[in-house]
């Protein structure tokens, strides 16, 4: 076989339309809730309607007799069974607590589970919940973090003796010495409000004894099928080699599906125990209280500088709301931003402290950006405050302090080494697209005219760390797993290719992007590659998708696996063409003899030869495949400059986003169309934090924003089109030069918006606005400033 294939153009860098789309667009989908197996029992959860109470008595007798009901369980049926677990005990003295699969004696947040019904039909399971009678003795709810830490506060976990979960301090340099040199010290308290991740697909689980031997399959709407399988085995005692986890089509995650949940644990245990399929589909209202929330920090930030604007040091004191229990990385989430508080700037010292606090609220955990949006918000907001204090142009203050492009690699004050970056280039491009000078002129004119609608310009020059993570680094941080990623590439006898990845996409387009990488590395047509993921049966090794790691780590594994495959095929090609491997050239899928290109074979031809195995060189095994499990050598650091033009009606407090420019640098782009889509989606979520969203609780711990009617997810009418562009500074820690882009938009945009809002009304004495910048919050900030000093 010496047929040649047409020279394919490089696939990397092309805005390839997505392989995923035709199926999704025609409704040929495989959401977990689509799965209907014969004999399925539908699971429904009775959830506590009060935040904190003793359970005195549960009467399930009427429910047990109801139509269609097969079983009703309470906590007594699962003594000691955990419903979730925390894999990141951040300090040696952290207060860990038990998270029951079903509560036995006490409920600790509104939404905690007190009973479980299994019935033959979805509607009948829901009906039966109304027949369960629970006697509660209400306990005082712990809602406010500062109150929770006071002596004599009611306790979320009585046995812990405290609501303080942990305090983590990381002093870098000598902050007090840096402060002593300062001419100016600015301190502010920022509130990073609680958010509800809200993927459009809520959670769903189907567990069924199915397949070979004792295997039980769990389909679940998750970002982490591989990690979940390990944790389910550890938590249930069911042997890991009997559990298969499948993440079919997953309708968004944003960190909300980076979790092990009691619903998954119970579905697995009950399907195993009863020998029949068990299914649960979460309602949206359930999702609002029962899927973990994000953010929720009080940030006390202090920055010290010379009168010329040179930064000296920064002090960060955080209170981070854990909610009622610790789940997968609850305590670690705020610490993911710990190394990034200095942002893109040079300074001598950073003193970071974070205290995690238990409250009677839904558990918090990762939400798009996880820790880095909070750190970026703090540094970018305080830079504007410092600029105002110094009377400097905020962009000039940034330029004075950022790491110049010739200074890379640069080790920041917290010890992270930023491999590459070019803040000057990204900023220049952003200023140009924005029309910065014209908008500043308009701002001045409106101010001079006393226009009731004022204009503000918000800046965010940010970087973030992504590509979780070098396994050693994770180990040093007490995280109990690694950060590697796996890929297997197989060229099948017919020339078609299977790419098995350990990443678990849920909207990111891995099938397309991974095909682009492999097409170039092994020289096969993009169309011939099938990407296999999200199933521990078919893709057994992986660390899944979160923290903008899929391309940053998983992409490396594809490249290395492809290179290994190419080298194996080279040896076979050399043998068949009767030359030595050094005399073989590989170009776009064709192996040819150097100086004699007529003598050649294609990679597909070699795959067939490796399958028949009639004529392989000695010591070479049949089949053509390459495998790699890659541990990244370091993080990568996307960066960018975002600018927002904000109009604020000073009479009503109404805020309008007039123009948004985002120039990002994520290194080499494999597929610029998908990069841009990721930026858009991130922007929408970051802007939503700044302008629309916020989970609110009353003093009794009731979630007031418990449905989509009350929790304001932005619609198309609430957002503008965005102006986006990229600069390209290749990463040197990644063999393809790429960085991550999944979270950048969400990380950068929140401070850009709030800086813009404050900039519009700073002349009225305002120096902060609570998020979301709703008309009410903005109007109040203006009133407070007018009635005596800044808010």
């Amino acid at each position, binding site marked *: 076989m010496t047929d040649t294939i047409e020279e394919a153009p490089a696939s990397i860098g092309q805005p390839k*339309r997505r392989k995923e789309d035709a199926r999704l667009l025609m409704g040929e989908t495989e959401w977990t809730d689509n799965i209907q197996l014969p004999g399925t029992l539908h699971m429904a959860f009775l959830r506590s309607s009060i935040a904190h109470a003793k359970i005195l008595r549960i009467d399930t007798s009427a429910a047990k007799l109801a139509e269609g009901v097969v079983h009703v369980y309470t906590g007594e049926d699962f003594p000691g069974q955990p419903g979730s677990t925390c894999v990141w005990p951040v300090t040696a003295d952290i207060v860990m607590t038990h998270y029951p699969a079903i509560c036995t004696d006490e409920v600790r947040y509104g939404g905690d589970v007190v009973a479980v019904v299994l019935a033959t039909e979805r509607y009948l399971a829901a009906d039966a919940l109304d027949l369960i009678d629970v006697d509660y003795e209400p306990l005082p709810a712990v809602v406010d973090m500062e109150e929770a830490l006071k002596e004599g506060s009611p306790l979320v976990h009585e046995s812990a003796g405290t609501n303080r979960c942990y305090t983590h301090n990381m002093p870098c340099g000598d902050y007090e010495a840096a402060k002593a040199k300062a001419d100016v010290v600015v301190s502010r308290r920022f509130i990073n409000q609680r958010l509800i991740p809200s993927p459009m697909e809520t959670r769903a689980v189907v567990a069924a004894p199915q397949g070979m031997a004792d295997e039980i399959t769990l389909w679940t709407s998750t970002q982490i099928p591989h990690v979940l399988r390990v944790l389910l085995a550890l938590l249930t005692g069911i042997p890991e080699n009997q559990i298969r986890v499948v993440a079919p089509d997953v309708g968004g995650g944003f960190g909300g599906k980076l979790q092990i949940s009691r619903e998954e644990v119970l579905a697995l245990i009950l399907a195993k125990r009863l020998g029949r399929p068990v299914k649960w589909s979460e309602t949206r209202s359930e999702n609002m209280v029962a899927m973990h929330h994000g953010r929720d920090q009080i940030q006390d930030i202090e920055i010290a500088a010379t009168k010329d604007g040179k930064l000296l040091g920064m002090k960060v004191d955080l209170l981070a709301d854990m909610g009622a229990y610790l789940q997968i990385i609850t305590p670690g989430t705020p610490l993911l931003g710990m190394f990034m508080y200095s942002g893109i700037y040079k300074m001598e010292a950073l003193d970071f402290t974070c205290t995690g606090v238990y409250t009677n609220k839904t558990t918090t955990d990762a939400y798009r950006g996880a820790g880095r949006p909070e750190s970026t918000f703090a540094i970018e907001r305080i830079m504007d405050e410092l600029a105002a204090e110094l009377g400097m142009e905020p962009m000039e203050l940034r330029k004075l302090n950022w790491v110049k492009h010739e200074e890379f690699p640069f080790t920041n004050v917290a010890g992270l080494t930023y491999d590459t970056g070019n803040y000057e280039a990204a900023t220049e491009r952003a200023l140009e697209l924005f029309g910065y000078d014209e908008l500043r002129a308009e701002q001045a004119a409106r101010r001079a005219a006393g226009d009731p609608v004022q204009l503000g310009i918000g800046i965010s020059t940010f970087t973030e760390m992504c590509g979780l993570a070098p396994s050693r680094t994770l180990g040093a941080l007490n995280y109990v797993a690694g950060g590697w990623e796996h890929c297997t590439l197989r060229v099948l006898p017919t020339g078609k290719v299977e790419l098995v990845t350990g990443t678990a996409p849920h909207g990111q387009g891995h099938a397309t992007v991974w095909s682009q990488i492999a097409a170039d590395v092994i020289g096969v047509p993009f169309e011939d590659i099938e990407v296999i993921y999200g199933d521990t049966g078919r893709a057994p090794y992986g660390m899944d998708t979160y923290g903008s790691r899929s391309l940053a780590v998983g992409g490396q594994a594809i490249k290395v696996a492809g290179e290994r495959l190419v080298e194996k095929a080279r040896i076979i090609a050399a043998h068949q063409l009767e030359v030595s491997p050094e005399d073989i050239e590989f170009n776009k899928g064709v192996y040819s003899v150097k100086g004699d290109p007529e003598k050649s074979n294609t990679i597909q031809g070699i795959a067939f030869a490796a399958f028949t195995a009639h004529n392989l060189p000695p010591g070479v095994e049949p089949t053509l495949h390459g495998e790699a499990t890659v541990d990244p050598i370091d993080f990568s650091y996307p960066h960018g400059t975002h600018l927002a033009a904000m109009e604020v009606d000073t009479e009503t407090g109404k805020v309008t986003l007039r123009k948004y420019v985002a120039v990002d640098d994520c290194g080499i782009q494999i597929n610029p169309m998908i990069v841009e889509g990721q930026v858009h989606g991130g922007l929408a979520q970051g802007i939503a934090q700044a302008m629309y969203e916020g989970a609110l609780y009353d003093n009794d711990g009731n979630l007031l924003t418990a449905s989509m009617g009350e929790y304001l997810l932005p619609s*198309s009418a609430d957002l503008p089109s965005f102006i986006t562009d990229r600069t390209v500074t290749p990463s040197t820690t990644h063999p393809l030069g790429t960085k991550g882009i999944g979270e950048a938009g969400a990380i950068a945009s929140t401070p850009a918006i709030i800086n813009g809002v404050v900039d519009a009304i700073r002349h009225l004495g305002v120096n902060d606005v609570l998020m979301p910048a709703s008309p009410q919050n903005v109007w109040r900030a203006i009133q407070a400033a007018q009635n005596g000093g800044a808010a």
Partner: protein
Amino acid sequence: MMHISATVNGTHRMGEVEPRLLLVHWLRENLGLVGTPIGCDTSNCGACTVLLDGQSVKSCNMLAVQADGSNITTIQGLGPEGEMGTIQKAFKECHGLQCGYCTPGMVTAAADLLAENPDPTEEEIREGLHGNLCRCTGYHNIVKSVQLAAAEMRGAK
């Protein structure tokens, strides 16, 4: 139990249903048309949007029996058999979807919008689709998709 019969994606379907059964559950669970997903329980998200006698409706916000005698088109019947229609192709071309969960509702709502207004402005598109939430795309490319579909459909006439 009550009798329902309707034309769904061009095929006559009927059955006995509980009076309280939601239309979306009839489509998904009784007829197996799982292309139409559910995103909420307060009729806010639009994921479940289908065309009922040509008008877009939220199928979670209706009882199955209320659809008796009607003509229903779901995402699975929107394009020509086994192919994508103009709007679907435009969504692919403009990267108007990521996870795809909002997509059936979004495409269906866009079909209704374009039937009423073949040449909408960006603002009309944004207003017209405001009942359909998407958490992935930030709407930017959805708007572009609808603009492209509109242009293609006008061109085709």
